Structures are given as C-alpha cells and as structure tokens.
C-alpha cells in the first residue's frame, strides 16, 4: 500500500460535515423521523439501489465514560455480552442465527455512547432487527459467557502488547487521560478485569441501557410501511429503566510536559504519540481546525507526511488528528521510525508546530478547502455512512444541515482563521508524549527533551 489509512481518522471523517455540491439539496438526505413512545427517536431514509439495509443506533450516556475507574472495561464487556444469549436463545443459537443470515451485528461502546451497528441483505433485515431487539431487551448475561469474555480480555491485553504500534495508543490514552472518564480503556486493565463480576455488568446494563434519549437510523431498500410494521414488533416494545447519564467533564488540560518511555526490547522501530488539548464537537473553530489538520497531518501531502516521509524517508506514515467530545477535545500527532532516528524525527515535529503558528500560504489554504470539499461526498455514499451520520449528528445536538454549514465554514476559512486555530490548538509547552521502543537504543537520544518516566512493556497495566 502506498499508505495505511488509520481507522480512527476514517471514523473521524464520518463525523465531519461536508461541502454543498448541490445547493438545492443538503449533503444528507432528510430522513423521516419516527418517535417511539419508549423515547427512542428513529430516522428512516429509503435508498432502493441495492437490496441492502443498514441500522445504526447510539445510546448517549451508556459509553465507557460512565464506568467507574475500578470497573474499567465494564461497558465494553456488557456490550459484547448482549449478543451472547437471551432468556430464549443460548449464545450458540444467537451466533448461529446471525451467521445464517450472513448479517453483521456489532454492539460496542465509545466514551460517550453505546453503539449498535447492524447490516444485512434487505430480505434478512426483519430477522436481524428482531435479534437485535431481543439482545437489547432480554440479555441473559450467563456466568459461563461472562467468564469466557473475561478470560479473553485478560489474555487480550497481553496480546496487545506484542504490537508496539497498537500498544502505544493505549499507553498514550492512559498517560493523557489518567482517571478522567473520557479516557477509559475499552480493553479494561489487569486490576479491573480481575475484580470484574457478572453483577457489575448487569448493574451497568440496568443503569444505562435505555431507549430513552437514544437515536437510531434505518437506511436501505426497506419501505416505510415494512419498517413501521417491523418496529411495532421489535424496538417499539423495547423497555429499559436506565437513565441518561449526566454531562461528562471536559478532557484533561495537561500542564507542562509529561514524557513516558515504554521499553520493548525487541522493537526495531520507535512508535510515538503526542497529545495536547483540542476543541469540542460544537466549537465554531471546527471548519478552520479541519483545514489546519488537513494541512498539518491529515492528508498525504500534509506537512508531517512531507517532512518525515516524502522528503526524508524516515517513516511509512505520519499523521495528526483532532478527536472531539461534547465537552472538549484532544489533538494528537503520531508516527514511528527506526530507533536511531527518533530524535531527528521529533525535532522536526516540534519545529513544524512552531512553523504552523506563523501561518500557511493562501494556496495551501485553498488546496485544503478543495480537498475537504472534494472528499466529502464519498463519506455519505453508502447506507451505513448515511445512517451513522444521522445518529451521530443528533447525539451531538446538531441538525441534519450541519454538514452543509460545516462545508460553508470550510469555504470561508482564510489564512487568518487557520493561523488563529494553529496558535490556539497546536502544542507548545504543555503536552503528553509517549514513546514505545527499545530503551537501550532510544533513551539516550530522548534525554534532551526532559525527564522521562520509563516503564517496561511487561509491567502490568498501561
């Protein structure tokens, strides 16, 4: 591959609004809104092109940020167990039923919400929605299934540490967020997993999983009548006693430098992530920040990629992104290089932060604006992309015309607004930097950046 596209940035793209190519019509098709008496709001768009249907749902407040630190990982285990049996079907039967449909059903949590993704051929969708409904309404939480998931999670943490490129993200998340609820690791940690119980899982489910305040979307070839008939037999009957969670605190604002080195003696490359405060999902800086990130580390010819990869061949990939929450956000930049090049690489990154604050050329701004607008329509091309966008916008308190507003904002961003965003959002003195690599080779090179806390990859936790 010419370059790997990080999964995270693809998800981020989905959250971004888009440029209006047809002024008469919005970027997103306007859905029919169906409000169910149990408090679930469902959006429906008919796309008859292919015999496919996609379902997306988010439950704000049922995400990992609602976990107490001592139960880290509980929401993710709960979500997994929802598809592991109901009072009428054993886990094996649910798996058999889903696989027989050739369908995909994934239930998982992000910091801010629990999410349900279900995709199938249109002819199989009624059965898929029925299985989804029973999973939400009537999960068994069998001890045997819990024990299996728990032991898999404990082993999974060890396996994660064999992959430095993956492990560095978890070490960074821990270092940046500490015990801030937005930083819960979906993997859990050794201590929380050892004390995890099926009761804690059930408690989380009861407290948080409710149709009240949830948003769902159905996009595909199903007709409106078919959908409504289906809803009355499934999600319309969904009851849940849980209550939506309280608003979340903002993510941390690091003061000074936090430097962490994780020793992985067999690593032939050093992997790093650097993070600093970003902006919230509803911040008006969003379009200018999108232009900024496109230029800084968000596309192939970005400054990071140009300086680290294209000009110097130091790495296969270098990128940056803004992660946004309702209560705030985080900027991260990351890359990797041969052990002996780590300081050369980091020096360039720090110099680029400073250079960006002195501004971008007007042609660069124009190029980034064109790029964001030109690449937007494909992000809303498939049923699943439209459905995901509808529910995410609602969960963020935005309107369906937000993509159009965002794209207008991108069009009207200027060198001045982008420079202001760079000054506000790119790190200077306050940041968290985590490196995973072979300490014997890289520690001496890193000493000039300050005092490092050194951990071993084999130590418990992240």
């Amino acid at each position, binding site marked *: *591959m*010419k370059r790997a596209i990080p999964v995270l940035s693809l998800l981020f793209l989905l959250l971004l609004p888009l440029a209006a*190519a*047809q002024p008469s019509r919005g970027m997103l098709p306007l859905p029919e809104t169906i409000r169910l008496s149990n408090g679930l709001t469902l959006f429906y768009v008919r*796309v*008859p*092109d*292919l*015999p496919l249907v996609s379902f997306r749902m988010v439950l704000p407040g049922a995400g990992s940020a609602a976990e107490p630190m001592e139960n880290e990982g509980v929401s993710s285990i709960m979500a997994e167990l929802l598809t592991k049996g109901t009072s009428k079907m054993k*886990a*094996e039967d649910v*798996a058999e039923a*889903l*696989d*027989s*449909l*050739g369908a995909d059903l994934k239930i998982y949590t992000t910091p801010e919400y629990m999410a349900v993704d279900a995709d*199938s*051929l*249109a*002819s199989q969708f009624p059965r898929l929605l029925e299985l989804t409904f029973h999973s939400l309404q009537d999960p068994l939480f069998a001890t045997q299934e819990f024990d*299996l998931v728990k*032991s*898999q999670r404990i*082993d999974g943490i*060890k*396996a994660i540490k*064999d*992959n430095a*490129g993956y492990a560095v993200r978890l070490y960074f998340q821990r270092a940046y967020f500490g015990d801030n609820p937005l930083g819960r690791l979906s993997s859990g940690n050794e201590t929380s997993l050892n004390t995890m119980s099926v009761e804690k899982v059930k408690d989380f489910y009861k407290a948080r999983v409710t149709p009240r305040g949830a948003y769902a979307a159905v996009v595909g*070839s199903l007709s409106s009548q078919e959908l409504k008939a289906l809803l009355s037999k499934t999600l319309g009957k969904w009851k849940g006693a849980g209550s939506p969670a309280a608003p979340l605190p903002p993510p941390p604002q690091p003061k000074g430098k936090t430097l962490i080195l994780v020793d*992985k*003696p*067999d*690593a*032939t*490359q050093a992997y790093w992530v650097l993070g600093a405060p970003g902006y919230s999902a509803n911040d008006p800086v969003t379009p200018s920040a999108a232009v900024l990130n496109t230029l800084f580390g968000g*596309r*192939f010819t970005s400054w990071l990629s*140009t300086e680290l990869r294209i000009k*110097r*061949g*130091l*790495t*296969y*990939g270098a990128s940056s992104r803004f992660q946004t929450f309702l209560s705030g956000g985080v900027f991260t930049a990351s890359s990797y290089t*041969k052990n002996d090049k780590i300081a050369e690489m980091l020096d360039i990154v720090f110099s680029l932060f400073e250079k960006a604050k002195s501004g971008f050329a007007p042609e660069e701004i*124009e*190029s980034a604006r*064109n*790029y964001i*607008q*030109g*690449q937007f*329509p*494909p992000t809303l*091309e*498939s*049923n699943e992309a439209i459905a995901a966008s509808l529910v995410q916008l609602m969960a963020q308190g935005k309107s369906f015309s937000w993509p159009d507003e965002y794209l207008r904002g991108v069009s009207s961003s200027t060198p001045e607004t982008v420079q202001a965003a760079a000054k506000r959002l790119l790190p200077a003195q306050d940041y968290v930097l985590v490196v995973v690599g072979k300490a014997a080779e890289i520690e001496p090179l890193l000493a000039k950046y300050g005092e490092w806390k050194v951990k071993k990859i*084999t130590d418990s936790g992240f």
Partner: protein
Amino acid sequence: MGRILFSLLLAGVFALPVFGQSLQSRIESYKLANGLKVILLEDHDIPNVALYTFFRVGSRNERPGLTGVSHFIEHMMFNGTAKVGPGQFDRNMEFVGGANNAYTAQDMTAYSDWFPAAALEKMVEMEADRMQGAAFVPEVLESERGVVASERRMSTENNNAAILMENVNATSIMAHPYHWDVIGWMSDILSWKREQIQEYYKTYYAPNNAVLVLVGDFKKSTAKSLIEKYYTPIPSGKTPSAVTTVEPPQQGLKQVLVKKEAQAPLYMAVWHTPSVSQPGFYPLSLLDKILMKGESSRLYRRLVREERIALDVSGGIQETLDPYLFTVFVEAVPGADLGKIDRIVEEEMGKVVREGVTEKEVQKAINMVQNDFYRPLQTIAGLANALGQAELVNGDYQKLFSLMESYKAVTPDSIKAISSQTFTLNNKTVGNLVPEGGAQ
C-alpha cells in the same frame, strides 16, 4: 451509490440475472489500439469519479534479488515524471479536491483516484503521464527506499502474525514466486539498483498490460475522448513473459518454528489449493466461511468457545492466478499448548474430509458471501475496484455478474471431494510462533 437494480430486488428477492443485466447493460468496455482495456460506468449519485488503473504485475512476476520491487514501483509512481515533479502528483490532485491510494498484491498492482467530477481531465492526463513516464530520480528513490524499509519493519518485523505468515508461506511454497511476501525481503529492499527497477517498470507498465476503470459522474463520450487524447500516444510494450514455474507437489508435512519476543503464541497451518480458475476453488471458499467466519463457525466454536485455547481464528483461501494456500490462523491464549491446537485443527479438517458439511452450512456461507458481495457495490470506488479485480483475476469483468452463480453451484459433496484432496498431511505446513523471553 449506483442505481443498478430494479423492482425484483426492491421486493427483497435475490435475483442475480437482473442485477447482472441492468448493470452490465450500462457498462461500456473497449480496447485502444495500443492494447489498453477500458471499462466505463456512468453513475451520477454523487458528483465524484473513481478512476482505477490496474497493471498485471505483482510479486508473482518478481525473482530473487528483486523481491518487493513491484510494490516499490507502486511507491515510485507518486514520485515524479519528466512533466510532473516528485510529489507533485499528490499536490496537484489534492489541490483539485482529489485523493488517491494504491495497493500491490501477488498478481496485480492497482492505483485508485477519487476526485470531484471537474477534475476528470487533469486526472486522466496525470495517470496517462505516469504509465510510462516515472522518472526514478536517484535521491527520491533512496528516500523512498527508506519509507518502504519502514513499512516492512512496521507491517512485518514488528508484527508477530505477519512474521509467522511470511515464514509459513515461504516454507510451504518452495518454487513459485508466491514463496516471498509482496513487501519483499529486507536485503532486497536495501539493494535493488535503479537500472533493475527501471527495466522491470518498462516491462510491465505498458497499456497492453493495463486496465483502466472509470465509475462515476461523467459523460461516457467525454471520458472516451479524454482517454483517446491522453492514452493513444502511449506505445504498447512487448508481452511480458509468462510465469512458468509450477509449484511441485509437496511430499510430506513441513513444520516451521519462529521464536520471538511475545506474550501470546501463534499457530498457523496451510495447505496447497487450486487457483481461482481451477475446479475446487469455490467449494473451498465456502468452506472457509463454514470453518472460520462468525462465532458459529466450526473452528471458532471449538477453539475459542469450547476449548478456550484461542482468542481468535481467521484465514481462508484467496483469489489468485496460480495455486496458492488455504490458511488457518489461530491467535492462541498466552501459555497455550500449540500442539493441542494442531490436534484439534487436524480433527476438524478430518471431520470435513470424512463426513462433509451440511446443506444448511453451505446456505449459511452463501448468505455471508452475498452480503459481502453487495456491500462494496454501494460506492463508486467499490464498483471500480470490483470490476477491475474481476477483469484481472477472473479474466473478464463480466464474471463479476456470474460470481454468485459459481457459489450457488457448490454442493456439500463438492466441498467434501476437494477437501479430501486438499487436507492431507503431505500437503500441510504448520507454523508456530513461541515466546522467547517476555511474560508467558
């Protein structure tokens, strides 16, 4: 999304002939005098175009000393021609709102461009220019060599699963060029010479060895005249020599052990299989779903749920031009006995050979294939990729429309028959990755 289906499918009836006819009738395909095959499909749902260029070259065409060079040329295609300076292809493209990527496989190299409709001429011009115009500027070549070395370190050397696969595949396949991975051996990456790379490029980057696919928001007549204008001047090349090496039959179980710093051990087994065009391919492709796709699959259920000896199971068979491998890959739990995993895998393959699979399992696998088949066709990029791959791997893009028929013709008996030929001990290679140091 393409509006490519009509009422029968809207009613939820799965009717392939309708799918095929409606889409097929809107596709136009032709060859230029220089041998370039062109496939065009108008689709106006979004104001964008997907332009895919496929070359019939991949690691299959390489030789020792030049392993990985197909993939390296994929990188160098973005690094300058006589007309467009190094890095300028990407800068020009992004300036007009486009993005791109590329991939190299055993049998093909593909370049994908996604851009707003207004950029069509610019993109056709730049793609045509680099078909034979790549400059291989020495300094840029050296810098890019470092990028690819970094890619290998990341994707293979620092990835336990990948390093085990590389070892197992190279042990199983001894003669055919599928012996090495697409990324190539590190010593080759570090020592390809510029002239060797240029010679290889000249051999395989010619219109008669390429397929151009355009799907999206354009008028066919406009696209055709642009293709005519920019591609007609490119001379055709000599037909590249055929890959003639045939992997000799394996004559006994092979085993390979990789010791690495690791917390979790890994297990892998492979068996030689037919190519995509040989009998037995589609039965084995459905069998891989029956064994390993979904939590109700046979190996997942046995290893992950019942024995609790694995975290995950994956693998299967790939669409390749020459015979390749059926893979079972097991991510074991830390401390697991890999010998026990091997015994269980052997038992499960033995059951398929002796008792076969059920009608119900075959139907389940077909449902999975159908879902996976349609989903990418929602996008212009997915359509362009599927059409191009079918042209290269199956020999004709129209085979895309009969693909599901090939799957539907599979019976439990045909799975049993090919399984008894395939899953023998003499045809098997087993690989273990075990921790050396690190916590167990």
